[in-house]
């Protein structure tokens, strides 16, 4: 049986202020997985990651990384992890090259090994021409990529990404997705938190949803999406929709968005094909069909509101 990258058991955290951030979180991230930990603001995602990486003291529970308990073998556990935190946390007066090489040093990697590795990472992440500029001069997206380079320089087996694409434009974000996908193909395990659910849907094989300090759903992406009993579809028509057509679609809970656009709910016994047939019977040709929002987003909203 393959060893899990991360095993969290009954993790609890009460902050000094009395806030109960985690109420017994249990979670397993399989080795080699691309795992998403999703939840609304304040759900406890960053607290979980903080405890795993040694930045937050836990109140109770156990955590092990590739079999190394973070209480009994903290140094061994940390050696497996690379962290891209939510906040920018490097010295802005330092150069990207120095930031990455120094980080390797904290993991006991000699400079002779760290220097070529840092250069390659920075070039691969599109920061080749920024290596020797002060980090403060980098754009928001560049700073994020610098943090990824820093987290990878010691070649960790387990990469933790806490909202890595926050504030990054679409093109760069997609570039980062490709880079991360390639890393998982090489065997790296990734734990991702993000507010972009489309991102999680595209990247993650397994996800857990956390709300108010508790895991409310946990499984493969496929199984989680199956929880969606109905989804909202937007249909653009070539001609204005008629009241007769809307009446014929009443089983689908139709909403008229504008003259030529309607939204319907499809699900068990209410297929999209049948709805299009009804529109055809009313001489309304369909121009385009699309999901109103991502499937995961709909599941997420439903689970959070339950």
């Amino acid at each position, binding site marked *: 049986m393959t060893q899990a990258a991360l095993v969290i058991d009954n993790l609890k955290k009460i*902050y*000094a202020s009395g806030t109960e951030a985690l109420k017994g979180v249990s979670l397993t991230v399989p080795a080699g997985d691309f795992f998403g930990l999703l939840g609304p603001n304040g759900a406890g995602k960053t607290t979980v990651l903080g405890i795993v990486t040694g930045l937050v003291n836990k109140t109770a529970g156990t955590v092990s990384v590739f079999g190394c308990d973070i209480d009994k073998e903290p140094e061994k556990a940390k050696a497996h992890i690379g962290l891209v935190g939510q906040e920018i946390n*490097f010295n802005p007066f330092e150069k990207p090259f120095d930031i990455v090489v*120094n980080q390797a040093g904290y993991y*006991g*990697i000699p400079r002779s090994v760290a220097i070529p590795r840092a250069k390659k990472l920075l070039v691969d992440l599109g920061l080749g021409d920024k290596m020797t500029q002060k980090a403060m001069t980098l754009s928001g997206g560049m700073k994020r990529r610098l943090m990824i380079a820093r987290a990878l320089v010691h070649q960790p087996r387990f990469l933790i990404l806490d909202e890595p694409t926050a504030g990054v434009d679409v093109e760069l974000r997609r570039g980062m997705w490709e880079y991360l996908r390639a890393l998982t193909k090489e065997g790296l395990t990734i734990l991702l938190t993000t507010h972009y659910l489309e991102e999680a849907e595209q990247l993650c094989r397994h996800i857990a949803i956390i709300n108010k300090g508790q895991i409310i759903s946990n499984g493969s992406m496929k199984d989680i999406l199956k929880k969606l009993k109905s989804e909202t579809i937007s249909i653009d028509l070539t001609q204005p929709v008629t009241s007769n057509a809307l009446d014929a679609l009443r089983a689908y809970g139709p909403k008229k968005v504008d003259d030529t656009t309607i939204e319907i709910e499809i699900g068990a016994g209410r297929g999209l094909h049948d709805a299009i047939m009804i529109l055809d019977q009313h001489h309304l040709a369909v121009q385009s069909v699309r999901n109103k929002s991502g499937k995961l987003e709909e599941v997420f909203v439903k689970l959070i509101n339950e």
Partner: protein
Amino acid sequence: MGASGNWISFYTMVRKDIVRMFRIWVQTFLPSVVTSVLYFLIFGTVLGSKIGDMQGVPYMTFVVPGLVMLAIVTTSYANTSFMFFASKFFARSIDEILVSPTPPWVIIAGFIGGGIVRGMLVGVLVLLVSLFFTGLHLAVHNVVIIFCFAILTALIFALAGLVNGVYAKSIDGINIIPTFVLTPLVYLGGVFYSVHVLPPWWQTITYADPLFYLVNGFRYGFLGITDISLLMSVGILLGMVVVLIAINWYLIRKGLGVKQ
């Protein structure tokens, strides 16, 4: 991580700090030198000519070891307290080290390493400056004792600065201790006078000042004169080192001031 990994991590921390202090040398080295020049001018040249000899040596010669020591104390303390505070307060760059497998004792060694290097470099600079005020004459009784007491001073105050840096919650937190604790210790620690010129009750208070033992031992290395047993000084100072290391180890291991 192993011994070699720990050494590399320690070397990385100290190297990074040394690169920083040379990059901003106007802020890290120059102020102590300028302050020392003022002390030499006022206490050595102006007031010293009125005081005459102290324990059988010219006052300017007497005050040199104390002023070198003063520079080492303030610089090594300020370096670790500010470095640690800045790394946890500005941009949270302390996380770079906390997430790594660097054990607590290496983190302590890395921070105080930078403090010791800066303290010693500033001490050498102030000593060189003092030559201009002593006619290029430098009395040296025992160079090994000078070096040992200089290192011991930098070590003790770098460790004390680290405790301050860990506890400080604001920039005021790293200024209060130097102002209200360090400065009185410096002035009452025999930098500018021999303890024998004080009334008995004041002498008793001075014996409670750790700086007194450091200045006394350091001065012995230069001038060969001492107010108390050198062995006792070393014993007391090593005791302080052990206590300060234990406090720092506890604070860093628990993550007080840096972990939630």
